[in-house]
C-alpha cells in the first residue's frame, strides 16, 4: 500500500462525503472533510494536506472558485487537486484542468481508478517537493520564488541594485599549510556565517568560486535601500569574522581576513546559462566595478570599499573615508572610492 497521505475531501453532499472518506480510508489515507468550498479553503490555509478531492457543485463557494483561489495563492498553488464530480459538460471538465486541477474523476467514482489517480498525483507531488528542496539547496529563497513566479527567463532584466564581492586574504597560502579536509571545513563554516548575514539582510548569493563569492541586494526582489542593506551586511560579516577569529586564535589557528567591495547602480539581472543548466546572476559595469573594488582592498589596506553611488545611497551620518578618485583597472576614468569605517551600526 502507498504511504498514508493527508487528504481533504470537499463535498456538500453527505452521502458523497461519507463514501469518499470510506474509499480513501480503505486505501490507508487520513481524511478530513469540508462541506463547501469556503470551508475547504480555510482548512487548507490552516493545515497541511497532501492532496484535495474537490466537488464542483457546492454552495457558498463552488469548486471552480476554489481552484481560482488556489491558483492565485503562492502557498497553495501547487497542491494537487483531483476534481470528483458528475459535471454534464466536457467544457466544465476542461475548465477544471485549465484552472490547475491535476485530474478529473466522474461520480460515482470507480475505486480502482481512484486508487491509481491518487497514487499518481501523490507521486507527482513528491517529485515536485523533492525538486523544491533541491532548488532551495542550490539557490536562495528569493531566487526560488522568482523562478516559481516568473519561470526561467534567460533574457534578464534591468534592475538597480548593489553588488558585493568578498574574498579571503591569503587563502591559497593558508590552504597550502593545512590538510584539505581542514580547508573544506573552514570554507563550510565561513560560508555558513557569511551567507547567514547576507540572507538576514535580504541579499542573494549569486556566485561562489573557491573562497570568494558574489552577492546582490535589490534583485530579484526590488528594494529602495539596497545600498544600506549591502553595507550593513558587510559590517555584520566583518563583525562575525572577528568573533570567528577569536575562536581560531584560541585554537592556535591563524585568523582569517577578508576584503569586501561594493558597487551600486543599474545592472542586468536574470538567469544566465542554458535551459538545462543555469544560474541567477547580475552583469554590467557595476558588477565589474564591485569586483575591482574588492581587489583594491589589498592595495588600499582597507577592509570594505564602496563606490560613489553606494556612498550616495547611505545616510549622511554613515562613517566613510574618501580615498579620492582611484585608478581602477578596466575603468577609463578614476573612480571615487570610499572606505567604510568598521564597528558602526547603519
Amino acid at each position, binding site marked *: 500500500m502507498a504511504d498514508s497521505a493527508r487528504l481533504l475531501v470537499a463535498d*456538500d*453532499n*453527505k*452521502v*458523497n462525503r*461519507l*463514501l469518499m472518506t*470510506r*474509499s480513501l480510508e*480503505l486505501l490507508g489515507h487520513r481524511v478530513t472533510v469540508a462541506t463547501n468550498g469556503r470551508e475547504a479553503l480555510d482548512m487548507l490555509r490552516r493545515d497541511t494536506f497532501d492532496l484535495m478531492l474537490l466537488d464542483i*457543485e*457546492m*454552495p457558498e463557494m463552488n469548486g471552480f472558485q476554489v481552484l481560482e483561489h488556489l491558483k492565485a495563492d503562492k502557498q497553495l498553488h501547487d497542491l494537487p487537486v483531483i476534481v470528483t464530480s*458528475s459535471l*454534464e459538460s466536457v467544457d466544465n471538465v476542461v475548465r477544471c484542468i485549465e484552472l490547475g486541477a491535476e485530474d478529473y474523476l466522474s*461520480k*460515482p467514482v470507480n*475505486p480502482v481508478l481512484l486508487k491509481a489517480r491518487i497514487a499518481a498525483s501523490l507521486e507527482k507531488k513528491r517529485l515536485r517537493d523533492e525538486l523544491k528542496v533541491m532548488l532551495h539547496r542550490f539557490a536562495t529563497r528569493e531566487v526560488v520564488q522568482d523562478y516559481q513566479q516568473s519561470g526561467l527567463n534567460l533574457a534578464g532584466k534591468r534592475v538597480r541594485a548593489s553588488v558585493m564581492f568578498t574574498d579571503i586574504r591569503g587563502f591559497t597560502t593558508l590552504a597550502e599549510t593545512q590538510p584539505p579536509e581542514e580547508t573544506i571545513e573552514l570554507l563550510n563554516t565561513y560560508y555558513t556565517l557569511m551567507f547567514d548575514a547576507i540572507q538576514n539582510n535580504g541579499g542573494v548569493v549569486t556566485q561562489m568560486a573557491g573562497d570568494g563569492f558574489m552577492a546582490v541586494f535589490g534583485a530579484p526582489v526590488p528594494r529602495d535601500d539596497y545600498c544600506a542593506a549591502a553595507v550593513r551586511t558587510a559590517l555584520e560579516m566583518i563583525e562575525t569574522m572577528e568573533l570567528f577569529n577569536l575562536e581560531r586564535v584560541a585554537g592556535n589557528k591563524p585568523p582569517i581576513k577578508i576584503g569586501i567591495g561594493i558597487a551600486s547602480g543599474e545592472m542586468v539581472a536574470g538567469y544566465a546559462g542554458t535551459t538545462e543548466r543555469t544560474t541567477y546572476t547580475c552583469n554590467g559595469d557595476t558588477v565589474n566595478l564591485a569586483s575591482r573594488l574588492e581587489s583594491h582592498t589589498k592595495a588600499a589596506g582597507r577592509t570594505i570599499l564602496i563606490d560613489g553611488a553606494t556612498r550616495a545611497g547611505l545616510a549622511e551620518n554613515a562613517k566613510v573615508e574618501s580615498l579620492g578618485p582611484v585608478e581602477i583597472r578596466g575603468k577609463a576614468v578614476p573612480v571615487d572610492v570610499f572606505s567604510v569605517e568598521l564597528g558602526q551600526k547603519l
Partner: protein
Amino acid sequence: MDAIDKTIFNDLRATAGAEFVTDLVNTFFEEAPAMLADLRSARAAADAERYRRVAHSLKSNGNTFGAKDFAAQARAIELGGLAADPARDIENIKALEAAYNQAAAALKKLTHG
C-alpha cells in the same frame, strides 16, 4: 423495471463493505427528503442556481446506489433548469419524489431484508 440496478448496488457493497453501505443508505434516507423539499423551495423562489444544484446532488446519490430511474429524472431536472411554466416543474418534482419512494423501498429491502 427495477428501481435499483443490482449490479451497481452489489459492486458498491463489495468495495465499501455491506455494513457501511447500510449506514450510507440510512444517511441517504435522512438527507433525501430534505433535498427534495429544498428542490421544491428553490422552484418556489425561482432560484435557478439552487434548483439545478440540488437536482445535481440528487442525481449523484441516485447514481451511487444504482437508482437509475431516480437519477435519470434528477438529471433531466438539472439539465432542464427552471421551466417558464412552474406547473411543469412541480409535475417533474412530483415524479422525482415518486421515483425516490420506489428507490427507497427497494433499498430498504436490500439493506434490511
